């Protein structure tokens, strides 16, 4: 299991090399890529802010949970930090296992948990010149349960 944050482009060949294992008949990879649109707005580029100490420990926890729940051999998750252009990799998850069902389920679990648990924030820069923290400006109107 290997979780990491990187401020340089994600190195796919290195991930593949880490997941070579002759006992594994199945490999599942998920790639999150910078998309050119979000909720109707044309996106130009992204910026990811990461709080590394907690992102690292939480990311390792997620991989450990996946390894506990499914019989997988190895897993890798790398998240990008900083400025990203269209099409660049924001996150890559890779899992290998003897059979495919486990690899699919574990990869899905890892990306689903990573999206909601890692202390990472995304700022979208739009073609219009505006920029927004995703999820933030839009939920600012909602009261939150804890702020009495």
């Amino acid at each position: 299991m290997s979780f990491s944050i990187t401020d340089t482009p994600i190195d796919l060949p290195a991930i593949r090399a880490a997941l070579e294992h002759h006992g594994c008949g199945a490999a599942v990879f998920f790639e999150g890529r910078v998309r050119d649109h979000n909720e109707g707005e044309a996106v130009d580029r992204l910026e990811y802010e990461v709080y590394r100490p907690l992102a690292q420990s939480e990311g390792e926890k997620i991989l450990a949970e996946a390894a506990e729940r499914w019989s997988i051999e190895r897993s890798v998750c790398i998240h990008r930090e900083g400025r990203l252009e269209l099409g660049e990799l924001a996150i890559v998850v890779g899992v290998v296992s003897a059979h495919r069902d486990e690899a699919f389920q574990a990869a899905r679990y890892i990306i689903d948990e990573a999206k909601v648990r890692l202390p990472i924030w995304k700022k979208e820069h739009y073609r219009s010149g505006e920029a927004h923290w995703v999820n933030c400006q839009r939920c600012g109107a909602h009261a939150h349960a804890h702020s009495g």
Partner: protein
Amino acid sequence: MKTVHVRYFAAFRDATGRSEETIASAAETLAELFGERVAAHTALHPEAAARVALNDTLVDWESAFSDGDEVLFFPPVAGG
């Protein structure tokens, strides 16, 4: 009064205009502490999915805190 070191991330940093501050607070819970910060920074607003960490550990908003603690206010995350 307890003295705590507070850090703001992403949209919270933009809203407060700072990434950190050291403050004196009479609040008992982290939720109350955040409420004080909302009162102090007009652009800072509560967020439904915001989270809080105490000395690099995610904790409940109803947690207490101690003099000298470091408190991290995280706006809703959006990784991946």
